[in-house]
């Protein structure tokens, strides 16, 4: 009975405090956005990522053809290895497919894996880091030793093993990312939490009888969010590279058009001479990853003010 009452009162005050907090968070975000915006590099990086995201989302509308749609010449023969023309701005592949279309469709899986990877890195890494740092003691020891053990699994070989056992598919990479890419985030977030934990207002909140969950949610997570966001931004790049690498090695589903599969085909079908086929997927990966780095660096300057000039 009294329990319910307590919750009720708390939630009323909670409402106004939440608004207040939201406003504060909004202000912080705005000032962070300004910092990011000041960095031309970061803006450029974000633009790059947005451009490829747009490409992925609009692929069905902007891609001239299906990724595996055979291109026929007037006499019914296949258009194989044709250099760029008005009709095929990036030429055709050895199988008579349109390179530009493959590139555009390929951005879907890249961005999907990129964002999903970033999301998982942020959520799992932050969650583990906050829990370990906040509770300390055995919990901390347990989580961190678990992290240590996972550090012993090299990523690409591990995904290869998974692919060998469960068959080639896009999910192997995603599983690998979910299992192994959040480790560093967890470590960094944890040490940040360790220092936040000592701050007076946490003590005050504890003294006021706030629950652990609440303290973490209200006082700790918002403070480590910039850090998580930074790692998430960079994880976009890593995840995309990881997916492409695995596809290049032949452990991804070859029927799903992706930049890695394109490069694998170029390599296997003597397509290195066909620069129009070889360069675009490689440059695309580089650009997205670069975008992620630049965006991350802009953010880095917020987190590590001493890097600002």
């Amino acid at each position, binding site marked *: 009975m009294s329990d319910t009452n307590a919750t009720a009162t708390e939630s009323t005050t909670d409402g106004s405090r939440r608004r207040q907090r939201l406003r504060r968070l909004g202000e912080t975000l705005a000032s962070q956005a300004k910092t990011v915006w000041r960095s031309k590099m970061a803006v450029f990086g974000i633009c790059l990522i947005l451009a490829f995201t747009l490409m992925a989302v609009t692929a069905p509308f902007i891609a001239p053809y299906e990724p595996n749609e055979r291109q026929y010449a007037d006499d019914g023969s296949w258009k194989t290895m044709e250099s760029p023309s008005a009709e095929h701005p990036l030429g055709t592949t050895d199988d008579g497919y349109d390179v530009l279309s493959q590139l555009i469709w390929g951005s879907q899986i890249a961005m999907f894996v990129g964002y999903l990877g970033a999301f998982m890195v942020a959520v799992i890494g932050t969650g583990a880091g906050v829990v370990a740092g906040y509770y300390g003691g055995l919990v901390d020891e347990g989580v961190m030793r678990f992290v240590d*053990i996972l550090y*012993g699994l090299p990523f690409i*070989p591990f995904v*290869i093993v998974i692919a060998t*056992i469960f068959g080639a598919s896009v999910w192997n990479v995603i599983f690998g990312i979910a299992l192994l890419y959040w480790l560093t985030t967890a470590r960094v977030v944890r040490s940040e939490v360790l220092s936040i934990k000592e701050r007076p207002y946490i003590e005050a909140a504890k003294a006021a009888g706030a629950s652990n969950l609440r303290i973490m949610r209200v006082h700790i997570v918002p403070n480590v969010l910039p850090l998580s966001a930074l790692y998430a931004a960079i994880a976009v790049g890593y995840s995309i*590279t990881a997916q492409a690498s695995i596809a290049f090695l032949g452990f991804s589903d070859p029927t799903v058009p992706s930049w890695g599969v394109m490069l694998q085909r170029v390599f296997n079908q003597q397509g290195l001479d066909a620069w129009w086929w*070889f360069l675009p997927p490689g440059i695309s990966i580089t650009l997205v*990853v670069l975008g992620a780095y630049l965006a991350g660096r802009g953010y880095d300057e917020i987190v590590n003010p001493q*890097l600002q*000039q």
Partner: protein
Amino acid sequence: MLNRKYLLQRLALMGISLFIVVTLLFFLFRQIPGGPTAMMAPGALPEDVRQQVIEEHGLNEPLWRQYVLFMTNLVQGDLGYSFYYGQPVSSMIASRVVNTLALMISAILISYTLGIYLGAHLGWIRGTTLERVEMVIVLIARSTPVFFMGLFLLYIFSFQLGWFPVGGMRSVGASADGAFQTFFSIDFFHHLVLPVVSLSLFYTGLPLLLMRNNMLEVITEEYIETAQAKGLSRRRIVFVHAARNAILPVVTAFAVAIGFSIGGQVLIETVFSWPGLGREMVDSATRNDYPMAQGTFLLLATLVITMNFVADILYTYLDPRVSVDGESE
């Protein structure tokens, strides 16, 4: 002086890590299609031979017995027989390890030397346009997927210009009698150049950015003023005194980097037909040569775990202030 208790603790932890990774691998490989017998007794074997293999490896025993047998064999260095080569996995892997390490260590040494120097340099020229340009170049090099870089260099410098061999570790037919002749010959270095450059271009970013960030932390105006008061030149302050302080975390990251570099290693070995552990792992995985895939993976994992241990020990000496680009990989 290193705390002995701490060292022992870390050693124990390394042992536990290895144990858990091996256990995980054992149970993962029992999940392969066709069940555990497919792991040790490939289908094409005549039925009686197949039965014999199954018995020898205890594959008809309960899982825990198989596990005990697996662990016992492993401790004795017995990783089973490769399906494909029909030879003990351990003997097949031994030669590959050396080839892999030769490539890996060369690349890491080069990228760390270069990275530390360039990082200090970037710290020195901070705030200039040149720094921005260099940073962009560094970031592009670091953003390029290592296999794409490899393919690109292969195409330009081998296929087009013919300056370097198309792949492999030594010339056709070259048979050296000892490790020394194999790894310290012009022929070997000639084959080493492109893979090492591809890897180094990728690896250099990490120590470089770490070094730069540490330099920025170390070189405060106060620091420089104090040093100048002692009559030191600005250049000397940056490259000798500040760099000496900034370098420590980079050294720690070195050990971790070896672990992280394995992914790049696998890709580059594939692009350049390098007869190493990484390429063998890719090949054995496509061949469903499970014992071989398992063995190569175990070895790679052991390498990583050992390096993490070394890094941990170094951490206790040095102040670990590792920045974003430095760590997540």
